[in-house]
């Protein structure tokens, strides 16, 4: 790839041909704040937070969509740039409800981060009553909630649905202050092409989209990410289980578009992202059980294991090894399956061991 020489903030840099100013800056350790930009999505230029100044260019440029060119001299934090960014941010804040105390995204909100970085507390342009209250909270499905009053129209959800989920279930609708992200006119999200993979929730920079069951389960700073693999189909999607360190419970499940180890490249389906609550179900078995007539009674591990060993041994002695059958599980790990067939073959002396591969 051809290499390009340019100057950013007085520092000589090299970049690959075809890179945007933003990409070139990041590759050279120079920070530019952004909102609509996302590493997994195509450049969009919607939010205009990433404006920069390039010499010989009368207008400010969106660094996320402008290619860097040979000899370009770029400034990312001149007073003019900072003033423009603040103005852009304050225009976004005119309508954005400042409900950060109760917002599900508090602590991971990218709008908060940019406001903090630019030292903006509220909007000079806001009049009383400007805060968006025109949308009703949409929580009809069990997976995610849409709070469109908080939406900043960055278009990440539209792009992720189009580029990763490949459904294009939602898009921009209406004009001016009536613009909102919607499924095709006249149908609620539940009757649209949406399949609830939740990738839109994953990329939303604010609190406009959030997982329904994560509400109240832990602030971002309470959560610890554990990288693992999904328990459903055979694709083997890498997932992050977010555990609340205080409660020891799962708060939500997320994915990482930038993970080099993720075979799914950050993508997910509804089961992987939203069908984990069974882990904490009230119905979970918590002690060994032994049959007594038509019911079960609780037993200690020692008693239960002794009984299992005794009875399996008894069948083998009385009727031979092949009077025993072992059903293993494609739900369990390799290690567990390996042990199950050793139990059958080595310990009990039968090849009667199989699992549900055919079902």
């Amino acid at each position: 790839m051809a290499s390009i020489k340019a100057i950013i903030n007085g520092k000589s840099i090299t970049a690959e041909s075809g890179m945007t100013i933003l990409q070139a800056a990041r590759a050279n350790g120079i920070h530019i704040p952004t909102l609509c930009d996302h590493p997994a999505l195509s450049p969009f230029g919607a939010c205009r937070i990433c404006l920069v100044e390039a010499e010989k260019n009368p207008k400010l440029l969106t660094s996320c969509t402008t290619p860097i060119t040979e000899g370009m001299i770029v400034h990312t934090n001149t007073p003019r740039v900072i003033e423009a960014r603040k103005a852009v941010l304050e225009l976004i804040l005119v309508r954005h409800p400042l409900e950060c105390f109760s917002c599900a995204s508090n602590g991971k909100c990218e709008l908060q981060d940019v406001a903090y970085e630019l030292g903006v507390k509220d909007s000079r342009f806001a009049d009383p009553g400007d805060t968006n209250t025109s949308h009703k909270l949409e929580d009809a499905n069990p997976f995610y909630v849409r709070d469109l009053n908080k939406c900043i129209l960055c278009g990440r959800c539209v792009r992720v649905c189009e580029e990763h989920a490949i459904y294009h279930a939602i898009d921009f609708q209406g004009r001016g202050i009536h613009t909102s992200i919607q499924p095709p006119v006249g149908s609620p999200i539940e009757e649209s092409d949406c399949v609830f993979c939740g990738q839109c929730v994953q990329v939303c920079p604010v609190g406009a989209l959030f997982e329904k069951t994560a509400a109240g389960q832990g602030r971002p700073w309470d959560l610890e990410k554990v990288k693992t693999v999904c328990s459903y189909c055979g694709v083997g999607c890498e997932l992050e289980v977010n555990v609340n360190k205080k409660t020891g419970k799962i708060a939500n499940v997320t994915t990482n578009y930038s993970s080099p180890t993720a075979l799914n490249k950050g993508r997910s389906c509804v089961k992987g992202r939203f069908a984990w609550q069974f882990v904490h179900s009230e119905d979970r078995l918590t002690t060994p059980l032994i049959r007594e007539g038509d019911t079960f009674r609780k037993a200690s591990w020692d008693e239960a294991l002794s009984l299992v060993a005794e009875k399996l041994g008894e069948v083998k002695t009385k009727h031979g090894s092949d009077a025993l059958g072992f059903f293993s599980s494609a739900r369990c790990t390799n290690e567990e399956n390996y042990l199950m067939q050793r139990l059958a073959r080595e310990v009990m002396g039968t090849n009667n061991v199989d699992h549900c591969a055919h079902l």
Partner: protein
Amino acid sequence: MTGLGETLGSGAMTNDFESIKSADTILIIGSNTTENHPVIGSFIKERKRKGNCTLIVCDPRKIEMAKYADVYIRQKSGSDVVLLNGLMHVILRENLYASDFIEKNVNNFEKLKETMSKYTPQYVSEITGVSPELIEDAARAYAKGPNSAIFYTMGITQHLNGTDNVRTVANLALLCGMLGRPGTGVNPLRGQNNVQGACDTGCLPEVIPGYQKVTLPATQQKVKELWGSDLPATPGLSVVEMMHAAGEGKIKGMYIMGENSMVTEPDSDHVRHALKKLDFLVVQDIFLTETAEFAHVVLPAASWGEKDGTFTNTCRAVQRVRKAVDSPGEARPDWEILLAVGKRLGASWNDMNSPETIFNAIGRIAPAYAGITYARLEGGALPWPCPTCEHPGTPILYTTGFPRGKADFSPCDWVKPDEWPTEEYPFIATTGRILYHYHSGSMTRRSSTGEFIKEMYIEVNPADATALNVKDGEQIKVTSRRGEVSGSVKITDRVPAGTVFLPFHFSETSANILTSAKIDPYSKTPGFKVNAVKLEKTV
């Protein structure tokens, strides 16, 4: 797996996900990819959208993928062998096959030509209901490639002639030389997180870990050396066969781990009878499932998210799974329980006391896993075969030829499915999964997904609905030779006239009451996809 093992040498998916990006033609048959493997579905859709890729979808149900297909073929349920033979007939007739590849790599070409001769598009059309032109279009697109990939799943395997279906898929790929390169391959998508791993680690009645046949002296020798025990030399019984044997009183004791046989096996009434007859049943699970209700002892297991280990995905990639939270009460990881049971029955197993040490034991006996360690997996997935610690893993199989030197054409003639519509049972019932649920539903019905789709429904074609005089949401009863279930009607042209579809995730109205426990004689897989039934409106 049996069909592929016999023709190609290994029963696993040949190519990885990256490979999809290089496919010029993608043929999907018997796989509702966007619902059952949604992320792979998205990779295929992405490839299609980027252009220059021909998509062929063959499925009796007009699944989502059919919307994007260049060629959509709606063959009758149970006629896959005829359809694929028809494709091969056209490819042979028009000299579109890979003659150099065949000469170098494949035996039995003359026999294939002979068997295919009668499968003219006209003849195939009569049985499958597909127009001769579509059969020709599909054949030409697949043969043209230059890189064509086939994806299939249970729509191919869950038939009494499932092994023939798989052999036929492999024949087609061999005929056109569509193996061993990015963008090609025979790709059976595995339906469960670790079904590949359960096979790899020897939870099959005829092989120990690494697909080494129990009947071979070399295998017995190896077991003697590594485990210090004598390996029984006769293959054991499959899941469905074990259930039959229990029903007949031949199997007296059963150990079931993480499987809800009452819901997932065919012919539920028979399963109930078999489980009741056992002298001793131990069930190890995370819930008191319908199967556990019959147990003498129930052992509480840790679930996903509560234990460490590895899963092997559909394209043979071994990955680490990690513990995130503690188990409730006294529940323990399955590996811990199995170690304890084994030791009480006299096993020494001193070299295994953690998931990592057990994994290392797998590598000692299964050559394909020998080079994989927990330390290496920290850097990401490794696809087997990975025979040494320096080996990078094998994302694409057969790049330099076939394990046995040459692959074999295994031509098959079509046999009419055992259950074909009759005057008394004029409809075909087919069962399967839906996006929002998984298998017996014991996990998804206790999660957010359970609130979204709460109960069983029956997909009925509009023409059949009119004839039966039922409206959307009304109840119908579906009756097979085994039993009956009722559910609300969902009128949709996703199913062809004469066929109904029932998701099998709902234990209270289990679709498997209808299905037959007859199995494919080679792969031991039941014929879930074709069941003759009658429909009645209930009031």
